[in-house]
């Protein structure tokens, strides 16, 4: 993209205009996050930048909403609920998803395409439809309003991500490595744990992160399936936006952004590690 020395004026103008346009689009992508963070330090109870804040007057800022977030039962309850639901749903999704992805990566799988389509469908079917269907069905079987109902639903929603990431890793996986392990005398279980698993681990972890964030960020299904005892953080935020309009949700939002950045960093590290390992595999 470097501008060559023979570029005409028009090319130069376009070159920079293009970058400005891209800059604006990227700004559009990131702007909401830039607004939420400062506003979460608002000393007032409304979603507006006060004149004090704009003057950078310290009086306009406070940690009040963070205090509320970290002490109020209304927020701590949902936070803990989210932390109780997401990891279990993730674990379920990863365990079943990885197993199935390994199965799908084998050479002779009958109805592979159909199975794949079914396994990916929770990602494609609109959430409201999934939520409606689960709401009706789980009501019939007594799972509506229970912890396990929400966990099952979230696991189902997270599974496509696990399948996709793990399958992608397995596509790049050199099958002769498992054959080598077998030829050296390792049984299928041992081969899986000592050779295959360490190598597809980045894919598994990245699938797990996706599954986790899916559950941690999910609001539609949990609102239909959950009862008060399963109120999660996004649900509370939705209530915060709809019912209470309390700026504490901005503090919660900022905390969640921080979590996202951490997860993103983790994913990037994994990607690099994965690339290094891949690069190392001779081919």
């Amino acid at each position, binding site marked *: 993209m470097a501008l060559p020395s023979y570029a005409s004026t028009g090319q130069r103008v376009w070159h920079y205009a293009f970058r400005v346009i891209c800059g604006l689009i990227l700004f559009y992508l990131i702007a909401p996050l830039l607004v939420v963070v400062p506003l979460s330090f608002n000393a007032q109870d409304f979603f507006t930048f006060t004149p004090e804040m704009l003057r950078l007057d310290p009086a306009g800022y406070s940690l009040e909403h963070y205090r509320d977030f970290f002490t109020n039962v209304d927020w701590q309850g949902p936070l803990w609920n989210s932390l109780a639901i997401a990891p279990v749903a993730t674990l379920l999704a990863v365990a079943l998803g990885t197993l199935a992805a390994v199965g799908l990566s084998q050479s002779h799988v009958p109805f592979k395409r159909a199975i794949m389509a079914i396994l990916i469908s929770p990602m494609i079917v609109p959430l409201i439809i999934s939520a409606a269907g689960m*709401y009706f069905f789980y*009501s*019939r079987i007594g799972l509506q309003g229970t912890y396990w109902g929400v966990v099952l639903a979230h696991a189902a929603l997270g599974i496509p991500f696990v399948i996709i990431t793990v399958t992608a890793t397995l596509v790049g996986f050199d099958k002769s490595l498992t054959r080598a392990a077998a030829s050296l005398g390792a049984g299928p279980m041992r081969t899986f744990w000592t050779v295959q698993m360490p190598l597809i681990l980045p894919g598994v972890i990245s699938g797990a992160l996706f599954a986790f964030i899916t559950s941690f960020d999910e609001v539609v299904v949990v609102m239909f399936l959950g009862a008060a005892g399963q109120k999660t953080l996004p649900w509370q935020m939705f209530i915060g936006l709809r*019912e209470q309009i309390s700026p504490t949700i901005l503090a919660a939002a900022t905390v969640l952004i921080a979590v996202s950045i951490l997860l993103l960093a983790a994913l990037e590290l994994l990607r690099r590690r994965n690339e290094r390992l891949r690069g190392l595999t001779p081919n």
Partner: protein
Amino acid sequence: MTITKLMGSAALALLPMAGAAFAQDASAELPPCEGCAESMVIMSWGGAYQNSQLKAYVEPYIAQTGIAVTWDESSNEAIAKLRAAQEAGNMPFDLVDVEGPDAQRACDEGLAAEIDVAEVLAPGADGATVEDDFGDSLINDCYVPQIYFSTTFGYRTDVAEWNGATPDDLCDVFDTTAFPGKRSLQASPKKNLEWALICDGVPAADVYKVLEEEGGVERALAKLDTIKGDVIWWTAGAETPQLLADKEVVIGSTYNGRLFSVIAEQGQPVEMLWDYQNFDFDGWIVPAGLDEARMNRVMHFLHFATDTQRLADQAKYIAYGPARASSQPLVSTHAELGIEMAPFMPTNPDNMKNFLVNNIEWWADHQDEVEATFQNWLAQ
């Protein structure tokens, strides 16, 4: 009918602790609850209202009994939640806070258990019987009223375009020439239709009669059509206060207690327009089919939470009138701000020059069809 009586006594059979122990003076020590569940899930409205419940009697109750209370803020969707739970055969809620019409529906549909209030609730502190003390608010056999509230308007006091005029007539809401700017109204036919008819020239006493006539609802909607383009529709009570504070709207309807928060607690430049405030009740229903331990706990709690003093206490946190006559003399100042609550109470004579009372039975009967028509109108 005999059946009803049979059922009434059947419900009571589930309440071994009802009766004698409860007929005592409410101010006495809370009697122990034998055979009671150790936790409760309460469905309510969230926000300032839920907070007033928490402060006035849930926290004191927890302090005395040590039980665990979980809140669910889905009273907006109470009927749907109850239906789903009933279908699932798994009732997660012990106590549900609903408005009058929903209570009527829940009772009609068998979603709510019938309660013999005279047995379960404490008599008034002034010795009045439960029936006398609650009076008209006892709208059906399932309902334990807590408060009456009104739905009314708040407006910003700093709208330049109004040139110093302030809306003091309900119909100013419909007058976008004199009072330009966005309005917020509830995305529900209730109250809006009544107001629209009044401003279309129908006497307040005839509103429900006209609504029931052929073309009555359409007439009200036609009146609403005149401001439809200027309306932001809300579904939660907190939206109008936020919209007013954000200057997104200049006038908006909401529950009077929410406006109290904006004006008194948040100090926003907002005033209230009380003309034709619309009264309604809010109170408890108990889901049908709870097991004995849970039912015992709920009844124990209701006895405590609806006595004269607790209901008066609730009014210290939010500007709603206690449903008991005996509580009203005890309402005084705001618990934290020390503000005199009376001027913010819907029952204050100054605020009651014109008012409507929500016709619960009419709405319970007609909500299905009117709601469908209204939502279709809204979606177009």
